[in-house]
């Protein structure tokens, strides 16, 4: 029996170690490759700065918009039972399962329709513009935002809301004074995860906003453009940048205790 236990533990540890080693090798080989040089042209710092700035800006805007839009939806799904809830739930899951490039193509088609044109009149030009990056990232991450926030709201015991109502607070005040503060860790964690997903988004962005150097060039678009021109070393700089940003975020996520949502 003891030997069985030891073997079982050994299998667990070996599997974990093998997977961790694989990812470390991936990062290591990228760094080594970069160390060998081989830049087609010297790294253009202003282009790197542009891509980083644009990525941070668009990902923050998309994540914030996704969070604001998904909070009421997630709360509704977490707390109410209604006819067609399953159908709505499935529809909102679509961005999670749909390939980003397909989503980007659908957005491109949508902005050619009268409804899309109306939306463009309201928020400004989208197709092949920076706004297009935000819209594309928003559409890719909104499903994830709803899922994560729904879990956060579900983890708040409804009894707190019931007590708040009996203490004279209506639904809205109960939501802002009780539910939202109690779900705050989950909401922050959701924002970080959604942000991380947005910053790495490529397929939908590329299709809707295009890949124009120093215009719609986010970090992933930059990686693509550098690979397209066979400037592997420059592409690797962007890859390592993306890794650094992602790992810092995931680390921050664990620090704030939102790890259980990951």
């Amino acid at each position, binding site marked *: 029996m003891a030997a069985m236990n030891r073997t079982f533990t050994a299998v667990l540890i070996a599997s974990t170690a093998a997977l961790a080693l694989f990812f470390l090798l991936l990062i290591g080989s990228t760094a080594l490759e970069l160390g060998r040089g081989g830049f087609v042209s010297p790294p253009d710092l202003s282009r790197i700065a542009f891509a980083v700035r644009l990525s941070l800006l668009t990902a923050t805007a998309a994540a914030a918009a996704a969070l604001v839009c998904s909070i009421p939806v997630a709360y509704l799904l977490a707390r109410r039972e209604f006819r067609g809830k399953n159908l709505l739930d499935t529809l909102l899951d679509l961005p999670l399962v749909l390939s980003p490039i397909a989503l980007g193509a659908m957005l491109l088609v949508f902005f050619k329709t009268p409804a899309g044109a109306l939306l463009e009149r309201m928020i400004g030009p989208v197709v092949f513009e920076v706004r297009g990056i935000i819209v594309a990232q928003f559409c890719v991450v909104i499903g994830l935002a709803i899922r994560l926030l729904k879990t956060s709201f579900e983890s708040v015991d409804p009894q707190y809301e019931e007590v708040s109502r009996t*203490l004279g607070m209506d639904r809205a005040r109960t939501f802002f004074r009780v539910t939202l503060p109690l779900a705050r860790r989950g909401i922050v964690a959701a924002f970080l995860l959604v942000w991380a997903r947005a910053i790495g988004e490529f397929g939908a962005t590329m299709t809707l906003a295009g890949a124009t150097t120093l215009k719609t060039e986010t970090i992933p678009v930059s990686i693509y453009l550098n690979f397209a021109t066979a400037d592997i070393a420059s592409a690797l700089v962007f890859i390592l940048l993306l890794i650094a940003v992602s790992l810092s975020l995931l680390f921050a996520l664990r620090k704030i205790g939102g790890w259980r949502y990951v």
Partner: protein
Amino acid sequence: MSEPWLRVENLDFRIGSFHLRRVNLACARGEYHVLLGPTGSGKSTLIKCLLGLQRPQAGRILLAEENIGPSPPERRGLGYLPQHHALFPHLDVAANIRFGLRGKTEAGETLLRRLVDMLKLEPLLRRGVRDLSGGERQKVALARALAARPRVILLDEPFSSIDPGERRLLWFETRRAITELGITALHITHDLDEAHLLGERLTVMITGAVAQSGTRAEIFTRPASAAVARFLGYRNIFSGKSTPGRGGSVLETGGLRLVLNEWRPAGAQTSVCVRPQDIKVIREDTPVQENLRENVFSGTIAALYPLPELCLLHFRLEHSPEPFDLELRFPVYIRERLGLRDGQKIRVGIWKPGIVLFPDPEPGA
């Protein structure tokens, strides 16, 4: 009972296979009313219907003659102390208590100070709620509910998560705070001691319906049905056909021949209950009291169960095939005084005025 302050009329609520059936209940203004019943009898569901957290399918809820049924929970004027207290974990004790106060009014601040003094909460005010003891949490939740000045406070098993030693003290403190403020209370529990101690009037609920309503004495001395008697822990429940006797109708059941304190038609199906404290062990050296004389039985002590505050005795009639036929309950010192021991031959007498005749015999009895 004076004019009801809170009245529930024919309330009907069905959820899944559970059904609250035509519940009627009335609490007078300032009364401490206990809603008593076994787990799963629908007490908490009824409270949720009263609070507006569940929508009953039929019936009315009247508070001071106003139908509050259509009002949302925040407009009903009903305070709520839930079973696990539900203190807001993101607020400290003071913020929890102030939660239901609208702004800083003189009346609100005075009430707050009074509650803090009454419940001795001053040392806790700046503390977080996570590290409070069960009793402290209960008092903070009570202060929070009372600070909102409810017209009725509904307490849902508020002591169930508190250690027994601390519980008894909290019973007194809770009731004192509520009655001093003149607030009507509807307190639900399945604990018989708690119900007996706190309730001026009680309502017993069994399987989704009100089984009996009345004063403490009425409920505990005259249970209205076998189901209520069983819930109160009375095990001496007998059924059979009554026959005419000299001092009252006679009920013959098993080896017992009980002379009742009422007349029933000959051959009528009859159910009775005898409380364990209404059966006395008869000392051989003293004359049998008049009220016991007609129902004296000989047998042996099947078992003795000494509990901290009382002693239970299981009595078996001579030649009875049952493990025991009667259960007796008496103060612990009686056991010592009479030198009672397992297997001993004794005589017991049933106090005739204490025999409870149920108006409706149990189905199939």
